């Protein structure tokens, strides 16, 4: 059984990258080219963190975890760490979080709608990583 990793740690990032690369081939990502930053406010250690994804024609190219200002992305989703954790644990839907102002999306909403199902796929892969929040 796989050990539990700390959410957003370097070990968690490595595992996430491995799973996204193997479980979401370009055709599962609709050959999309895009980038997205999740910006986590009020993390348990008192910092703000980000999780940055970049896809090129559906290929998973980049996954970064860091503190402070994230790289420029087509979409930026900002919210409290706890909210993202609830979404990753499957306790809260991303859409409901957006509609109740728990998350804020910056970027072209029309394009975001086209990518909503892909974001769900991505979240489902990440949710399966045994993690400690």
């Amino acid at each position, binding site marked *: 059984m796989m050990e539990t990793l700390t959410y957003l740690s370097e070990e968690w990032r490595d595992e996430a990258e491995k799973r996204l690369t193997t479980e979401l081939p370009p055709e599962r990502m609709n050959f999309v080219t895009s980038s997205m930053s999740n910006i986590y406010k009020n993390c348990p250690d008192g910092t703000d963190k980000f999780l940055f994804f970049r896809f090129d024609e559906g290929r998973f190219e980049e996954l970064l975890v860091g503190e402070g200002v994230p790289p420029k992305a087509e979409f930026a989703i900002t919210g409290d760490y706890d909210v993202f954790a609830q979404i990753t644990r499957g306790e809260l839907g991303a*859409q409901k979080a*957006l*509609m109740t102002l728990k998350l*804020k*999306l*910056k970027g*072209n*909403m*029309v394009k975001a709608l086209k990518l909503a199902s892909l974001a769900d796929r991505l979240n489902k892969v990440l949710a399966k990583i045994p993690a400690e929040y």
Partner: protein
Amino acid sequence: MNQTAQPNDPYFIDFPDRIWKIQLEMARQSIDVYLGSRLRTLSWTTDAFFPWRSFIVIPREGLPTAFTFVIDAARAADDSWLDEDHVYGFAPMGGQDQIEQIADFIKDILPEGRGRIGVESGMSNYLPEGWLTHYEYQQYAAALDGCELVNAHTIIDRLALIKDEGTINRFREASRIVDMGHQAVYEAIRDGGYKGMTETEIAGIAGLAMRRAGSEWEWSFTGGNEIASGYRTGLAGGACTPASRRVIQAGEPLMVDIHAMFKLALGDHSHNYLIGPSTERQRWHAGNFVDIVKKTLEAYRAGITPSLLAEQMMGFAEDLGFADHMVPGFEHGIGMVGDEWRIGLNDGPFPYWTNPDHVYQENELVICAMQYACPEDAIGFRYENPILIHANHCEPLSQYPLGVEEI
């Protein structure tokens, strides 16, 4: 993407040039961002129809970005010359409502998030005008802390006043379509065909014919195609008659005022009938009406003003003894959809009404509009036709023969 984006297309409009001219004027007035909200502004800058509350953000340099209800943004982008990266959708989601989304977008444009923002504030008797509401103004002022909001709609009004060739050609086509609608109505009501028909049915007959000919919409907010029969044609000052379920009757007048839209250009022409048998008194009214329409069309030209024209026409009606039946106004403004009411700029004695001393210039478009009404005789007629102002005459765009036909 829009199919008339090629310069050799007769309906081509150089939208990037329009934006560039707006930006030149913004620079002259030290405006950093123009936040348009009027339907006429959206039409004139995007070449797309925006039926929902929408906005356009024009930076000092580069392409504008339109914002509309998310369910319609992809369609609007598809119709517009702007691509999907410049038509955003807003929705009630965190960061995506129209205030926060647009305010954030503007702040990203402005150095340090500060600057002068031109907005569109005013009033109109035209309901779908789209002025910034008091609530919106307050919300944007709060969200754009450090910015100055200034009224700037005259920039668009001035630039949109004189019509370019592509716009004029679109209006010509919209009028040709309207003429086909009138022909279809005539074919339907002649030889007793009117019997049992309602005003709404006539509106539909015209609508179908015009749609078949390429019209996108019976665009008028006054109820689409306006039809009046009998006493409804002669309601005092009654220049607005959404079609009713009234059945057309023998011995009554019938007014058919129909509207087509072609690439956001607007056709608007009224034709009038007497359903036989007609009386001499009805024919006298009809003759008066045709005479004053002819006289008015002869008078329109560059250099004339609405007040001068009204004075001349009312004098003519007085001399011939029917001034009591004339509404003393002979025009309303017209432009791409959303621009229907005021003529010229907001520079008259009554704010946001037509300046009676507005001097017409070549290549202005106006709806020549007249309402003749005699409530006592339960009779009235309406004339509307887009006319293009030339140096020494006007060009009626609808070419359906003028007259009051007896059916």
